[in-house]
């Protein structure tokens, strides 16, 4: 049996307060330092976040599945050539690579809604969450026509370039968000009515924090459905559409 007094770390007698917050409180101490187990827990969470940034969008899997649903899907990339450039040059991540632009512009059919599945800063979040969410969302959107695009090295505003190249009315961009230690793989959805190059954030609506411990797929699907209906009714997106989140999620 281990003797308690042989352990050099001191526990904090307020561990009960942890029930009120997920902040790292009552960690205990050894000298002035954080006990090793807590240090390693922190490093593991950071490692998870770092790894999330370099995961890749599973384009073959997404394509196969969406084609099996009977929808067209295009594969595009931004002008950022690798991860390091992507991180340093957000401007390039907002522009379509020329070949991708040609590919999209070849298409003559138009769609009401283009869903863009983009890697962003955590592709794993999109690999995990996009399809199950779409399965709940699409049945809510009877009467609209859809097309799909996978986009790599993508920033949010790449959706404007894609939407305008495909001449669509509405873009819903699913993208991996910046990983936090407590939410390393979180997806966000940005919606834009009448997308065109050069729009700024106030013209978009955003649903954030779609992950295991955040917004679930059903909640997110309800929100996107609501935004689609509002945007098509008012022919606008962004700050002029007010979301009453509480009311919507309680429905």
């Amino acid at each position: 049996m281990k003797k308690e007094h042989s352990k050099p770390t001191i526990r904090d007698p307020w561990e009960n307060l942890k029930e009120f917050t997920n902040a790292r409180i009552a960690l205990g101490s050894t000298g002035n330092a954080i006990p090793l187990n807590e240090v390693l827990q922190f490093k593991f969470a950071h490692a998870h976040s770092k790894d999330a940034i370099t995961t890749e969008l599973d384009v073959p899997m997404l394509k196969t599945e969406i084609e099996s649903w009977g929808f067209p899907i295009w594969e595009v990339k931004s002008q950022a050539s690798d991860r390091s450039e992507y991180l340093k040059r957000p401007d390039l991540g907002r522009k379509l690579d020329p070949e991708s632009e040609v590919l999209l512009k070849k298409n003559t059919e138009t769609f009401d809604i283009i869903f863009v599945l983009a890697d962003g800063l955590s592709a794993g979040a999109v690999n995990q969450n996009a399809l199950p969410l779409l399965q709940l969302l699409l049945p809510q959107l009877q009467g609209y026509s859809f097309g799909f695009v996978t986009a790599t090295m993508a920033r949010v505003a790449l959706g404007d370039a894609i939407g305008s190249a495909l001449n669509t009315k509405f873009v819903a961009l699913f993208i991996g968000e910046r990983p936090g230690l407590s939410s390393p793989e979180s997806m966000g959805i940005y919606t834009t009515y009448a997308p065109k190059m050069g729009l700024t954030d106030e013209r978009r609506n955003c649903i954030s924090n779609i992950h295991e411990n955040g917004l679930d797929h059903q909640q997110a699907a309800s929100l996107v459905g609501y935004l689609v209906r509002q945007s098509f009714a008012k022919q606008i997106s962004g700050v002029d559409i007010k979301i009453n989140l509480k009311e919507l999620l309680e429905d």
Partner: protein
Amino acid sequence: MSYSDTIQQHVYSFPDLKSVLAKASPFRTGDALAGLAAESNMERVAAQFVLSEIALKDFLNVTIIPYEKDEVTRLIMDTHDAVAFQEISEFTVGDLRNWLLSHEVDSQKLAQIAKALTPEMVAAVSKLMRNQDLISVAQKCEVVTQFRNTIGKKGHLSVRLQPNHPTDDLHGIAASIVDGLLYGSGDAVIGINPVTDSVDIVGDQLKMMDEIRQRFDIPTQICVLCHLTTSLELLNKAPIDLVFQSIGGTEKTNASFGINLSMLQEAYDGALQLNRGTLGNNLMYFETGQGSSLSANAHWGVDQQTCEARAYAVARQFNPLLVNSVVGFIGPEYLYDGKQITRAGLEDHFCGKLMGLPMGMDVCYTNHAEADQDDMDNLLTLLGVAGCNFIMGVPGSDDVMLNYQSTSFHDALYVRKVLNKKSAPEFEKWLLNMGILDDVGNRLPIEPSHRLLKNL
């Protein structure tokens, strides 16, 4: 006016002062993103040679952002102390660097010339200085401010207790406050970043914190880091000790934050009338950070470090209690890795101190930057040596609301211990009375019956 120099038969020329400043800057991704960085390593050093020869007087004749178009430029020019400037008026930027490092220049001398220096002069000289130089000179500065305690005296290092919660839950926030206080943090301020910047939520947070402060008679100040307009609305409805605002170095940057100089003046005057300070009336709290002007598309072709120094001219107009750069928060497109964050942190601290500001630092990084806790340990230790007024204290370094990593309560104890620093004197006494620290600054074992745990 253009500038040039010939080095080894190669002529390096620069069209104007702001391009010399930009190209002389140690490399960082934000200047490259803006298209302002030097094209080569040699061009960068050539720009530094050129900059070293530019007379300080030139900075009073050339504005890098037009006077008519930018109220920050007008503030800088109109408040320049020409009398104090006489002593250094014949210097070049290079002379200033050498003079600042000389033994004859001490704390008192540095305080005397603070207002003789424009932010552009200060940014310029910092670009010619190694990290060691930035530390040496900053360490000579002493900027002391007071509200309910005394912050910034030599040999002291204060901590902002940052008890953020992802849904603004008051119990969750209070739990982190108790944790921080029991680890000896909170003398700079107990300051919450709210998720929702609304009058009701911010008001409730202020009332909760003020109640804790009064119940335990804590010699410190509280703040919710909401928008200035929210504070103004709450002035007579909730206990406002400090008024917070993010600021930048150009009028357009400040417009992107929804403020201007007259709004800052109004908030400052309003808060002064509340008369809540017991020892002093420094009551503004400003946050800044390199890259904010580029991010707001409001940089006028001026490099991010010079824009940052210009924000300090805005800050010093309002006698703040606290100013800190949030150095690593902005992300890798502005400061890519631990090396760039470290350099920027030392520059910001140096520039702020030299301009007479009570400079602290949020030693921090995001997960997409190439940095980790080891880089933060390095920068924290360097800033401790440089005499930084305060740092952040976040439970276990992990801000669960803002999703980035800063320094922890434990980190504060570490840096105080290895550098023999103390809390603000009044707060130190409180920690002793509360049985949290002993008289050599070590933490005492906390019993479950401790007052802070029992009465909540």
